């Protein structure tokens, strides 16, 4: 069994390794690895290709933990890692009051996607959040039930709906294939992430005009108290120069 790189207790000394969470697979992993390599500090996995720990070339006392994007957000929240590359959507969803704990050091320019409110295309009378609120009220008065919003983004949904002054709905936690919820009859409305909108269209859903909750992309983010660490600065400038050279 491999020992996870992330900490299980609070750091004690000055020379504790700085732990960086990087995506363990997929396009996010490839892009992140390519950026570090281009910046002159390649990421190395310890042990086999499958290993969950790594190092960064030319940087002493920095450890890499390979995690899923959502684990990176979660471990940033509880301090098991000090920095990481993940989606902005996951940071905002996972970390309560995220601005007070986390700083987004660099927006990486890939992994673009929007978190949006989408309703069935068949709702010809619904184009805005205002329409949605009225439909929600009518639904409640007519059927005695709240309109259901399927999503994995409970926090983002609640904040956005509250800012729009909408109260008469309920969320339904969805762990996968959210776009199928209206067809399956488990919800009427969805809040989901979309990059091209084609999945929504294929499921006969449309995005509300003022229903874009967040324009997200991949980011390099760190816990606030670690932002001043010299190693963090090197990591950030590595990524920055790699991004500059890309252009």
């Amino acid at each position, binding site marked *: 069994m491999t020992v996870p790189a992330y900490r299980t207790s609070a750091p004690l000394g000055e020379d504790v390794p700085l732990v960086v969470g990087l995506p363990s697979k997929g396009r996010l992993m490839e892009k992140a690895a390519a950026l570090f390599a281009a910046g002159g500090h390649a990421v190395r996995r310890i042990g086999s290709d499958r290993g969950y720990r790594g190092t960064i070339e030319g940087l002493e006392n920095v450890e890499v933990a390979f995690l899923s994007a959502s684990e990176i957000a979660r471990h940033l929240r509880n301090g098991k890692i000090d920095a990481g590359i993940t989606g902005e959507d996951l940071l905002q969803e996972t970390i*309560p009051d995220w601005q007070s704990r986390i700083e987004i050091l660099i927006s990486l320019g890939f992994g673009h996607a929007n978190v949006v409110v989408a*309703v*069935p*295309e*068949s*709702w*010809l*009378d619904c*184009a*805005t959040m*205002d*329409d949605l*609120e*009225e*439909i929600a*009220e*009518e*639904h*409640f*008065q*007519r*059927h*005695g*039930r*709240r*309109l259901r919003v399927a999503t994995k983004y*409970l926090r983002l949904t*609640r904040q956005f*709906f*509250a800012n*729009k*002054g*909408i*109260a*008469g*709905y*309920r*969320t339904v936690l969805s762990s996968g294939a959210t776009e199928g919820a*209206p*067809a399956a*009859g488990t*919800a*009427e*409305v969805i809040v989901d992430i979309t990059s091209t909108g084609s999945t929504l269209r294929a*499921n*006969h859903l449309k995005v509300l*005009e*003022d229903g874009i909750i967040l324009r997200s992309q991949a980011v390099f983010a760190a816990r606030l108290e670690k932002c001043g660490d010299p190693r963090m600065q090197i990591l950030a400038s590595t990524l920055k120069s790699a991004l500059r050279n890309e252009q």
Partner: protein
Amino acid sequence: MKSLHGTSAFPPPSASVFTRQEAEALQAQNERLLHLFRSRGFAPVNPPIMQPADVFLERSGEQIRARTFLFTDPDGLEELCLRPDLTVPICRLHLQQATDPTAEARYACIGPVFRYHARRDPRFPDEYRQAGVEWLGHAAEERIRADAEVLRLCIIALRRAGLSRFRLRLGDIGLMRALLDDIPMPQRWRKRLLMRFNRQKAFRHALMVMAGRAPDETNALADILEEITHLDPLDIEAAERLVMTRLKKMKAEILAGRSIGDIARRLLEKAEDAHLPPLSQEHVARIEALLAVEGTPQEVLAALRNLGKESDGHFAEAIRRLADFFSRLEDIFAAGECRFSAGFGRALEYYTGVVFSIEAEIGGEWLTVAGGGRYDDMLASLGGPRVPACGFGIHTERLLMATHDGGNG
């Protein structure tokens, strides 16, 4: 009991924050509360702590859901919750057990309720004991007396527990309802405004749209509304045909809980709204003036009478009721700080008339220790008959903190 809300060494959330002596003091305080309620004719009941989740989620909207502990039974079949308040469980118990659910019933209850705060601050526990009464089925014409008696009992309970300094905040949703009833507008506009009563920004936006001062900022529906406008507003069938034709062309089959008729009707209403005369300047001003009414009960009555002087309709009647309510509580108003705001509605969405909340100073901050009001729609919304109802709940842990907070009690 100085350590009740010390700033250091917060216990983890949810855990009992009380020492043994504190727990005993809480127990003694709550036994006295229950004794008081019983002596006033409220019979103790103990509804289940686990409740079907739907009942709460459908009734209270997302703000409560965000604080409700939800889980499924071990078979994974039924969604359950830990009760976030006592009112709904008592009403459900009443509907299950009363031989005649419209007959008068007075209940008292003290027991744990659960609201997720995730704060390491004992003033915001995830689990606390609520004490309260619910008075169901009093005669409709006795409502004002019942409202006043319930508020009085709540204050007596707080005082007996040792609370000497508190702020009473009052509101009455009935005032806005009555004012809107007197102003000519489609019934759906009234509903639209009342649904937003608790949410200032949303209320004002809806009002401005009705006044023609904030036109729909989007043209996304212009095309279909243009077509609908040519139909007779009452010809729902023609509108349904139009909707059906469009949906066929789009191959959009998922209606997600709505019918063609729902969509067609709302399109007709939207088209009609755009052509109805906007709310007049004067009526908008009256609605806004009502929302701004704020002050002591005396000040408020004067302001309301000023506002309603020409009308002899629902609003005048609502003012008379409020004056009657106030007159029954003069001694209480004289004894402490009391503010009435016409725009005050409590966050729980089921209140229909008088609402109140009582705040006390705990750890240097004024926090709600009790709240209540009238909720005449509750039993009907649970599938029972329409029965007048009012009640209150006390946050007993906070009450104990407030009465042991130095300077008080």
